[in-house]
């Protein structure tokens, strides 16, 4: 599904990612963990296509295609979804209308018929229940006046409606209390399937109690220093990140 090879990325002339290698297959859930500033969001943003990042070396293949040559909206149509670490407030753009336009843009791209209002509403209602979203949030502008937790939940709600093939969750757990965390994890787990890959970026192990990953990677200083199974997350929780850095330096 996703194949990242020796990826080097600079921002304003400063190298942030220094040779990332990552293979994610359909059906897998990968966790990327690491201290603040290690480059996790940079990786997520590059995958989603944000401007301002220069790929100086390496390649990203998504379903065998060069992902880097596609604009963000085409990536979305191809099934890439980024749940933002800091979801953007967009005053004046209605949450539900955006979601409907997004879904129909994706369907058009795939040669499917657009959903009419009735079918769309049925779909949205179902997903709202899963994520325990209040109706009131739906009639508002995108993320406007949402609490931190509501914004994160809205991201997962959008993901649940758009059903991406590759979901990137950037610190979706931060700012969530334990109940919200459970609801969000449930939403993510309900999307786990053989055709879908999920990359969960976090710097706490907590979320991974609920979304159990197949692989865990430690990203630090722009490099993946260690990869392992779910146990690696537990070990990081106990011992912190420093031992990984030391082991890598040795």
């Amino acid at each position, binding site marked *: 599904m996703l194949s990242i090879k020796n990826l080097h990325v600079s921002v304003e002339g400063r190298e942030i990612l220094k040779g990332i290698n990552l293979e994610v297959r359909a059906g897998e859930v990968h966790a990327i963990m690491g201290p603040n500033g290690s480059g996790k969001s940079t990786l997520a943003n590059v995958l989603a*296509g944000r401007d301002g990042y220069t790929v100086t070396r390496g390649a990203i293949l998504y379903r065998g295609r060069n992902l880097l040559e596609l604009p963000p909206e085409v990536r979305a149509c191809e099934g890439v979804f980024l749940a933002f670490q800091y979801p953007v407030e*967009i005053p004046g753009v209605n949450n539900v*209308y955006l979601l409907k336009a997004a879904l129909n843009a994706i369907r058009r791209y795939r040669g499917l018929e657009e959903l009419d209002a009735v079918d769309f509403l049925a779909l949205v209602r179902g997903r709202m229940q899963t994520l325990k979203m209040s109706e009131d949030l739906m009639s508002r502008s995108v993320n406007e006046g949402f609490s931190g937790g509501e914004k994160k939940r809205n991201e997962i709600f959008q993901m649940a409606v758009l059903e991406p093939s590759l979901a990137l969750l950037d610190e979706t757990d931060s700012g969530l209390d334990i109940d919200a965390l459970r609801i969000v994890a449930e939403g993510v787990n309900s999307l786990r399937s053989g055709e879908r890959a999920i990359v969960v970026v976090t710097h706490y192990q907590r979320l991974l109690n609920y979304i159990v990953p197949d692989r865990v990677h430690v990203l630090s200083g722009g490099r993946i220093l260690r990869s392992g199974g779910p146990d690696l997350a537990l070990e990081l929780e106990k011992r912190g990140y420093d031992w990984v850095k030391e082991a890598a330096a040795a």
Partner: protein
Amino acid sequence: MTEPAAQAFLEEFERDPGRLDWLAPERRAAIEIYRKLGLPNPRQESWKYTDVRLLTRRRFRAASLAPAAAASAAASGHGYGSEDCHEIVFVNGRLSAGNEALPAPSGARIRSLAEAAGTEPARVTEQLGRHAADDGRAFVALNTALMSDGAVIDIAPGTDSQKPLHLLHHCAPGNAPAAVYTRNLVTVGANARATLIETYTGVAGSEYFMNTVTEIELGPGAALEYYRVQQESLAAFHVGSLAVRQERASRFHSFSIDLGGLLVRNDVDVRLAAGGADARLDGLYIAVDRQHVDNHTRIDHEQPQTRSVENYRGILDGRARAVFNGKVVVHKNAQKTDAQQSNANLLLSSNAEVDTKPELEIYADDVKCGHGATVGRLDEDMLFYLRTRAIPEATARNLLTFAFADEIIRPMPCRMVRDRLEHSVARTLPGAAVIGEFMQ
């Protein structure tokens, strides 16, 4: 007073001194003021960015007296219909044919200025020019001297008018450039509530000069929701003055929308003349190509515990130019004044230009005043967010542009105005078709 163009307006007065006979002394006094002032020029601070020479190069003649029935019919196409409001149509500055029997909502008296000038001149002269001062305002003086008609509206104390009043001003000039001068006088009695809409339109592409003045008095506890929708022809000149005086605990909420006109200048003066008076001024201007729109507002906090909130937004494309000047004067004894002002501008083209300037004059010491002005482009984070949601870049840009404007339109309490404006705004901006997907 040597400018030939300014002279042309004087000749206009000489040619037709006979209209609104009863007001002859006022009109004569006004033309003398105008004679002294002459037309504004860029050396005057408040006309620094708006050059009216373009206007004076045309030789505008007062529009012909009788509006054709066809024009009246066309005008009503811009109306909302009598189901939803009390509507009065003026064509070329005169009460439209078929409109002789003015709607008479209970608790409100409406008549044309031409009629009131004859039958109750005292009512007219009492308010005329009381707030829209002629001195220093050449275009107001010109309006007083040359006004042809308008509406005189009195809302009785305690009235709660459910239906909005709509004054529809339509211009349908012939082949020669025409000038229209309208004057509206409005009083809202103590504790009365009303909604007043003024729409300015004209035949698409036609050239004319609309000079309009509206004077409003709000009694104690009165509340007026006021919509001014300017959708003149894109070749028209529009100079408008709004003067409001507010008594104790009265509330005035205005929405000033400018979509049309080639050269537009609006002067708004609000006097908070007694404690508890509250004014909220919302505005939106959209200018494309070579449109020029200038909004000058002035709010006088004359007494303690008065409040004003001002929020104007502009979108400029092409070589358009906008001016915003928001003056707030807090008088010496106006303690506990709360005055907030913001002006945000979105530039869609590198050739568009905005001059925005807050002007605070504060003579009291215990006040809360804030202001902010921005001139910017679309937010990159919002654009990226939308694109990750499969929205193409061009659509995302158009959508965010519309959303920026809609923040002024959407909160409008008057639904029929809001709905129509949302569509007008969407049509004015690029990408109307795609924006439609995001509206209802």
